[in-house]
């Protein structure tokens, strides 16, 4: 046994680069697809896509979809679906408008109340799904109709706004530049002013990322476990680092990091942490993978399902607030069709309809793929009808690629 491992060590190292790429084809493929789509639109929009103002817009436009996609990932990994998220987010936007505009609530108080209400809505749907075993498709389809109707009812068919300026800052504001801007002279042209704090944060993130991936790699090796080949590790880290730096530099040359992006980033990090490193996350994957086996392993599957929907409800509420702040008004139509974008993002990101499979990173990238296509096609002047057609085909293509890939393996 031991002589075999020693002998195969040298050629094994080379072939394992290929093996690692092959086994992660889906993940790498997704990133490459996103980059390819971005480059494509960069050309077809004559360089508008990567303009600082547009990149900032891209983040603002997609933040609420991404935030809901995080919750939807848990729902879908857990083996369920939530069709009500669009209606719930619209309903919460309406409630927020009534509270702040008509009753003059403090934005912070109103925001907290709204998120709690979202959790309560999630609980009210999760109850039927978890404890009474009503299929989630049906419960949330009902929820979709109910909350669409309720937001019409409480708004009385009108639009309510504008919101107090503090609340608008949620979606329109940027983080303050504590270091003060720096200007880079451009020869004869106007100098570029950079948002220094944004740059500092970007660099800090890259440094932290390199540090943590190196230490976890070292820990694995110290305990004698195989880590991915160093060349691959280095290339991967370098590419991700470069992307983060490019991204923050571009944001810095406009107005810096939007407030919403801070919220979104914290949530993404939190959900990556939950799904990858906590017992809660592991239990959700076990639930979706085989609910009966999970239950017989001592997992309280009913309570877990219930909590998943509570989380989804709270995130839908947050997304509803962000969207309302962005429009600066609550309209009865807000949130309509969001559920489709959110669900599409999660499936493009590689989640399985049957549950048990899916990654937060995939869902986020899936959301960005949809977002970049929306944005790029709009700039190109593609009609909304054809945009729908193309998005539909991309969704189908991604899932077909997935299934084909899985069957081949």
């Amino acid at each position, binding site marked *: 046994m031991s002589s075999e491992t020693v002998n195969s060590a040298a050629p094994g190292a080379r072939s394992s680069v290929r093996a690692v790429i092959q086994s992660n084809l889906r993940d790498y493929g997704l990133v490459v697809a996103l980059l390819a789509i971005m480059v494509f639109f960069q050309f077809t929009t004559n360089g508008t896509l990567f303009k600082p103002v547009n990149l900032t817009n891209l983040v603002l436009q997609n933040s609420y979809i991404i935030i809901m996609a995080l919750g939807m990932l848990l729902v879908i990994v857990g083996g369920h679906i939530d069709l009500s998220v669009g209606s719930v987010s619209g309903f919460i936007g309406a409630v927020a408008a009534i509270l702040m505009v008509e009753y003059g609530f403090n934005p912070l108080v109103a925001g907290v109340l709204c998120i709690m209400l979202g959790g309560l809505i999630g609980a009210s749907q999760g109850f039927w799904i978890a404890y009474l075993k009503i299929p989630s498709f049906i419960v949330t389809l009902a929820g979709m109709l109910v909350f669409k109707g309720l937001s019409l009812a409480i708004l009385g068919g009108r639009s309510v706004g504008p919101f107090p300026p503090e609340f608008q800052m949620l979606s329109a504001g940027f983080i303050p530049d504590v270091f003060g801007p720096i200007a880079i002279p451009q020869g004869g042209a106007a100098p570029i002013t950079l948002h220094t704090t944004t740059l500092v944060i970007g660099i800090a993130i890259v440094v932290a990322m390199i540090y943590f991936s190196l230490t976890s790699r070292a*820990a694995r090796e110290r305990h004698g476990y195989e880590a991915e080949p160093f060349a691959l590790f280095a290339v991967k880290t370098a590419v991700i680092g470069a992307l983060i730096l490019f991204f923050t530099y571009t944001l810095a040359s406009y107005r810096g990091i939007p407030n919403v992006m801070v919220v979104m980033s914290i949530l993404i990090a939190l959900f990556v942490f939950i799904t990858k490193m906590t017992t809660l996350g592991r239990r959700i994957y*076990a639930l979706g993978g085989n609910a009966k086996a999970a239950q017989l392993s001592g997992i309280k599957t009913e309570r877990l399902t219930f909590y998943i929907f509570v989380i989804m409800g709270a995130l839908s509420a947050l997304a509803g607030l962000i969207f309302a702040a962005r429009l600066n008004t609550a309209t009865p139509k807000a949130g309509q069709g969001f559920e489709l974008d959110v669900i599409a993002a999660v499936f493009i990101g590689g989640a399985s309809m049957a549950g048990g499979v899916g990654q937060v990173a995939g869902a986020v990238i899936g959301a960005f793929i949809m977002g970049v296509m929306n944005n790029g096609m709009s700039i190109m002047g593609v009609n909304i009808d054809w945009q729908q057609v193309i998005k539909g085909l991309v969704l189908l293509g991604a899932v077909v690629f997935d299934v084909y890939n899985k069957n081949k393996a």
Partner: protein
Amino acid sequence: MSKTILEMRGITKTFPGVKALQDVNLDVVEGEIHAIVGENGAGKSTLMKVLSGVYPHGSYEGEVVFEGNECHFKGIHDSEKVGIVIIHQELALVPLLSIAENIFLGNERARNGVIDWAEVRNGARKLLETVGLDEDPDTFVTHLGTGKQQLVEIAKALSKKVKLLILDEPTASLAEKDSNALLDLLVSFKKQGIASILISHKLNEVSKVADRITVLRDGKTIETMNRAEISEDRIITSMVGRPIEDRYPARTPQVGETLFEVKNWVVHHPIHTERQVIKGVNLNVRKGEVVGIAGLMGSGRTELAMSLFGRTYGHAISGDVFMNRKPVDTSTVRKAVDAGIAYVTEDRKTYGLNLIDHIKHNVSIANLLGVSRGGVIDDLKELKVANDYRARTNIRSSSVYQLTGNLSGGNQQKVVLSKWLFADPQLLILDEPTRGIDVGAKYEIYTIINKLAGEGRGILVISSEMPELLGICDRIYVMNEGRIVGELAGDEASQEKIMRAIVRGEGKTA
């Protein structure tokens, strides 16, 4: 009579990195029962998939000749067309259709797409008569037990004018009575000229009914034995490549004081709530003791175990459970696990494993607290645990990152065992722990059981294979119709005594 109907010559099938079959030869003559035996992963199922066209012509080397014609099956339809029908281990019936509908599924008795119900029912009735199943053709399949479902599958095969019937582990989930009926049926088919290929791990059955036996090992044909040459010992030697002197590892029992005790356990059926499924069971297991529960299918063994384990079966459950003489609450799985009880299910694929996840995650799932702190999983610790148990239970896999769905039955069972061992129970309830796994893996499972008993744990084994219970248990309870009808010390128990207890018990409940 001895016309060869099937010849498979030089079959080689390669998967990326593995040669599943290597130059395998097999021939079947008209009207014979030809058994194929071999350890898990020996290539039996792969060979049958080649034969039935699941792996289409061109994806393997070698040739398949059926009734003198070389076959180029593109799929299962092509092989069925010439009269080769395969019945899989996992039955392919639609539970919410009737028996008659299932029999003619894909082969409907219809004119211009309109089903001729009279013909369907009559045809079904005739076929049911042939297979000896006394049920109304309109009964939903879901209301039948596994044994009867198997007969429906065979009736379905007969409806397709079958010439060669392939049965993959047909008796794995059947009790002895049903198994015998099924085997008798195969023998009766011989007269009609229907040949059968029987894949089975139950060597006693194979040696009883098979005309010839082909042994596969590591993807190669080892030998084909004639009727006269067949003996269980020779089959085993051929399968594992070395003689196994004893099928049950030796053990010196060191039985301590009472560990686990159940008193007056009563369970009602979850749907027909007025019916008692378990009717006042009393039993106990001592430390270091291996206790068996024998009984026929439907005697309530699994129901007893699952109702004890977090009330995962049944309704209106009453009775008391004691661990170390103290009453314990086992009303949820979590509480049962915390009380020191583990239940290893009889159906590892449905109830035991997350097949789309790898070994590491499956091993830790019943004891996540053991690899985490404050809800955060320590990845390295989890990896260490998984590697540790992989070595201890001898799970054969490329690494702990292999998906459990890609493991053979024996190795899957070891993963389920590892999962429960890591939860460190005092009492382990093993429900059919060796169902559908090969001789070598069975021996390993028995060794693990012995080791656990040696550590002072109590083991409760439910099994339909009486020799297995006789081989490993210190004490055997006999169950029938929801009652304990006998208790035998290991050294004085015999198959005959167990059967007698069951029969006596049947008289009592009437």
